């Protein structure tokens, strides 16, 4: 019996080795792009004019709004990975799903924190049960629940399907939650809080915002790829440890 060489383990199908080779080349490139975009974006943001109503606080928008976008995009990436896990049972999809969840949670926290900072001068309180803030808070709870689920299993591969199923169950419910929170908000505070009715954003705000959004997306993909590589490596270590333990015990028995 061949013991070591051609064990058709899960890795033979997934080709994470190829992924990791690709990742080690792609990550530096992505990182450079990220830093470049971030530098340009931040420079443009800080040179944006003051808003006639909000003054300097409008600058928070450039780090707040992209974070909120990315918080949603992370869920989209997770849903796509969940489909990959369920339909093709591709281990890489599962790795991608697992690694995206903490990133999504991080962007959500960032959106909430910057929103709160923005809210203080705007609303006079750190927290307002504003429709957008509330939906993002619910999204954060969902993210944290999914992370808790992914950590609840001893064996990472066992968490794959539960995580995918739960992510996909949440996906169609998210718009419903968003809609219901908006409904709830209009019901309880009929336009008491002045929300920013945007009169077609002017170019000097729009361009920095778009660059920042691109920079955030680049951050996401860089970190996502790094997290995936780490996840693959840590799983491989785990498999090797288990094999070593098994070998040890069979040697002991013989």
């Amino acid at each position, binding site marked *: 019996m061949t013991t070591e060489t051609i064990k058709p383990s899960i890795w033979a199908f997934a080709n994470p080795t190829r992924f990791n080779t690709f990742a080690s080349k792609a990550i530096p490139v992505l990182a450079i792009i990220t830093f470049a975009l971030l530098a340009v974006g931040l420079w443009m943001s800080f040179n944006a004019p003051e808003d006639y109503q909000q003054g300097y606080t409008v600058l928070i928008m450039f780090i707040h709004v992209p974070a909120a976008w990315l918080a949603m995009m992370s869920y989209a990436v997770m849903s796509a990975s969940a489909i990959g896990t*369920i339909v093709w049972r591709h281990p890489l999809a599962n790795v991608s799903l697992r690694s995206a969840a903490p990133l999504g949670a991080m962007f959500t926290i960032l959106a909430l924190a910057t929103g709160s900072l923005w809210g203080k001068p705007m609303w006079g309180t750190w927290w307002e049960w504003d429709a957008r803030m509330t939906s993002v808070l*619910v999204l954060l*709870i*969902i993210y*944290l*629940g*999914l992370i*808790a*689920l992914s950590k*609840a*299993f001893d064996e990472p591969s*066992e968490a794959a*399907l*539960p*995580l995918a*199923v*739960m992510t*996909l*169950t*949440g996906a*169609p*419910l998210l718009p*419903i*939650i968003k*809609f*219901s*929170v908006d*409904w*709830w908000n209009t*019901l309880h505070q009929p336009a008491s809080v002045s929300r920013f009715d945007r009169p077609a954003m002017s170019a000097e705000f729009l361009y920095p915002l778009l660059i920042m959004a691109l920079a955030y997306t680049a951050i996401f993909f860089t970190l996502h790829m790094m997290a995936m590589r780490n996840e693959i490596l840590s799983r491989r270590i785990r498999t090797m440890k288990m094999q070593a333990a098994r070998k040890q015990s069979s040697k002991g028995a013989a």
Partner: protein
Amino acid sequence: MLALLKREILLSIRAGGGALTGVLFFLAVVSVFPFAVGPDTKLLSHLAPAILWIGALLASLLGLDKLFAQEREDGSLDLLVMQPHPLAITIFIKALAHWTMTGLPLVVATPMFGIMLNLSPLGIGATMITLLAGTPAISFIGAVGAAVSVKLPRGSMLISVLVLPLVIPILIFGVAAITGALEDPAPFTAPFLFVCAITLFTSVLGPLAASIMLRHSAD
């Protein structure tokens, strides 16, 4: 399938009275509120729809952790999964039975608690109807939570964390509908129809998602 419904209901009556525990829990939650907010009847009657709905929401989460985990422990899950019946239908029936023994008793008990909270007869009626239409959704989404944590020995807390944010719309529209029935400018029909729509939607989504999970949970 009727046999399954009968078995589930028999089980929840026999095994420590699942139905009764739910109502007791509901009673406990509802009676804790006045201690927190004070015995002001006016305030309580204003808060009553919210209190009843939160009580129902929490009570409906009871026993979800056992929905599949117990079946797995005694080996029944394998046999349920193997049968020619579509698994999603089997899960639908199990979720329905769960609702029959947790959600439905709450609806029946609502008038009593409504009176205690000084809710008007119209408010009691509206609460009963919205609970009747809305609480099944909690069991259906709960079935997914129960399915994904079927292998976890202490999954009940996790199920609540996973399920609660997803049932927020039900709570919002449910309470909004009651408010709509009681206060004039606010509408009743629109939020009530949303509650019905969400329940119908989750009655398909929940069992389907749970069946994907249970069908492929190798062990």
